[in-house]
């Protein structure tokens, strides 16, 4: 396993050649799959897709619960030279349908009842090929679906050549225009990050990695590809277990997890179970990313897991992880917050002021990132308001993270806040403007302003201020939101006004609305 690969599915091929009988993926309660069988099953899907007309550079949707079927599908799509487009099976169908249509997918691997609904949603002449799975779990449904529609063996094609710059996957994040934004990432974008992880965390085939994040979330890239490239075992955590503290804590001893990666929200959920009751002695590394880990709970978690090395990873979906910080053994050394750390070796970073001029160390500015892990761009038709890149005089593209940071004397960056109106809730990125765009479609709403306030006790809480001519029911508004948005984007609270307060320039006065909430919280 000493070969460094720039093509993601070659990582599986290498592991299958060296360790065919080791367990590649374990899906608790549903089964396991060896490296040999995972390579074979993904190869079958690849052949199937090729025969059905999928070509290098195409997109293939994945509408699947996290499962062995889904992991095999990821590799099958990559091997066919296509990019996988994972959607959240728990999100509203219309949102997922919109994502798949805007990506112009050539095929979709979907479980029922979504496969049927997708099939009905396209006119027959435009319909992509749909691989329909009765359910997911253990890989059997994917196998069955492929056998039902067995492709002619004589039509078998050789795998297409794939280049490091080819798109490997498109992840959708909340977009400020009210439509999800597709972040287009190449094999190389992910591979430089995954290969750095291998050098830094040194996983071996004995390791067992948690797969906590859903597959449409960027944290899953580390889970899946670090585990597979190390011939380790990936342990899938289903969406139900992921939300239940005790069941989640029990996964660690039952599955002998040695490397854990999740958001701080998930780790704080774990702490709701009494972790001392669970044998966590196999655990050697805890990685977290996606949001700021409040220092109090982090200190407590360190105490509960002595001997475990903690890393804070930082990076928007657009850049993959681009800075890292290894926590000191004595967390009491940390005063205000945990730094986001120093740049990963494949990333270049700088901190600039509003005019794009580099600021002096110690001064606050926006973090810009360039280098091998940075996306090529957003999927066409989903551009953001502003250009996400800044060009320097040498013509290099720097991704503007929108995050304000400061470089400390020890060379570590410290996160200070967001430039725009994006907040993090339960580890998910939420564009407040997307919630507003949704509520604006409600026929009875005249004005709406959505505000996020981070409360040290309750975490991020989203409030929608609404002006409407008649009385509205909060229950009805929440139902309206959940039909159009993922559950984590439904506002926690609604407030009603005759008209919303305005600034002198006749814009909605967000500052005063936010101050109202903050004053109430402080009272």
């Amino acid at each position, binding site marked *: 396993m000493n070969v460094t690969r720039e093509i993601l599915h070659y990582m599986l091929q290498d592991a299958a050649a060296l360790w065919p009988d080791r367990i590649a993926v374990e899906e608790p309660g549903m089964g396991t799959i060896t490296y040999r069988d995972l390579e074979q099953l993904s190869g079958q899907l690849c052949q199937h897709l090729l025969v059905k007309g999928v070509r290098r550079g195409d997109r293939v949707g994945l509408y699947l619960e996290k499962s062995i079927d889904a992991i095999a599908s990821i590799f099958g799509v990559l091997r066919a030279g296509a990019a996988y487009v994972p959607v959240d099976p728990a999100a509203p169908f219309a949102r997922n349908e919109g994502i798949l249509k805007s990506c112009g997918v050539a095929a979709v691997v979907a479980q029922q009842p979504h496969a049927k609904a997708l099939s009905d949603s396209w006119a027959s002449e435009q319909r992509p090929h749909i691989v329909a799975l009765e359910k997911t779990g253990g890989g059997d449904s994917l196998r069955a679906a492929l056998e039902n529609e067995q492709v002619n063996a004589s039509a078998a094609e050789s795998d297409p050549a794939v280049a490091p710059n080819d798109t490997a996957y498109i992840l959708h994040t909340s977009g400020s225009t009210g439509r999800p934004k597709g972040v287009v990432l190449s094999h190389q974008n992910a591979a430089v990050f995954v290969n750095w992880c291998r050098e830094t965390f040194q996983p071996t085939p004995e390791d067992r990695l948690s797969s906590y994040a859903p597959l449409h979330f960027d944290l899953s890239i580390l889970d899946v590809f670090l585990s597979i490239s190390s011939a380790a075992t990936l342990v899938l955590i289903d969406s*139900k*277990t992921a*939300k*239940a*503290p*005790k*069941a989640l804590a029990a996964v660690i001893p039952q599955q002998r997890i040695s490397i854990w990666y999740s958001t701080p929200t998930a780790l704080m*959920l774990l702490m*709701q179970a009494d972790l001392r009751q669970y044998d966590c002695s196999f655990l050697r590394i805890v990685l977290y990313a996606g949001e700021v880990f409040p220092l109090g709970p982090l200190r407590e978690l360190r105490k509960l897991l002595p001997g475990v090395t903690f890393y804070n990873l930082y990076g928007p979906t657009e850049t993959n992880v681009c800075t890292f910080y290894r926590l000191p053994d004595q967390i009491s050394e940390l005063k205000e917050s945990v730094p986001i750390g120093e740049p990963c070796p494949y990333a270049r970073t700088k901190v600039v002021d509003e005019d794009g001029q580099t600021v002096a160390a110690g001064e606050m500015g926006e973090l810009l990132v360039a280098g091998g892990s940075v996306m090529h761009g957003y999927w066409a038709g989903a551009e953001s308001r502003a250009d996400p890149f800044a060009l320097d005089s040498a013509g290099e593209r720097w991704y503007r993270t929108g995050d304000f940071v400061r470089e400390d004397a020890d060379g570590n960056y410290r996160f200070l806040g967001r430039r725009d109106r994006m907040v993090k809730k*339960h580890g998910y990125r939420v564009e407040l403007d997307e919630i507003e765009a949704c509520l604006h479609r409600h026929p009875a709403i005249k004005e709406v302003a959505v505000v996020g306030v981070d409360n040290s006790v309750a*975490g991020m809480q989203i409030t929608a201020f609404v002006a409407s001519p008649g009385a509205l*029911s*909060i*229950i*009805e508004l*929440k*139902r309206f*939101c*959940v*039909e159009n948005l993922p*559950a*984590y984007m*439904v506002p*926690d*609270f*609604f*407030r*009603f006004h005759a008209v919303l307060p305005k600034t002198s320039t006749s814009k909605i006065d967000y500052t005063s609305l936010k101050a109202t909430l903050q004053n109430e919280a402080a009272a």
Partner: protein
Amino acid sequence: MEDIKSTIKDYILKEFLPGEKPDNLTESTPLVTGGILDSIATLKLVSFLEERYGIRVEPHEADVDNLNTLNDIERYVQSKLPNA
């Protein structure tokens, strides 16, 4: 009997629907599928039920089958009480 339902109704109105007219929250209003209880809110409700009624909610039980409406929750809580 009515007592369980109204206690839980008051709790949900106070915690997750402040400002809502109590009459709008009926016995059959969908809570989980209606966007009122997300995963974190569900956890809070479960803690409340465990504390208030001295019951133990197994992780696999904290789902839409048992918690989607006030009727469901009342039925579930009653099934967990010792004299059920």
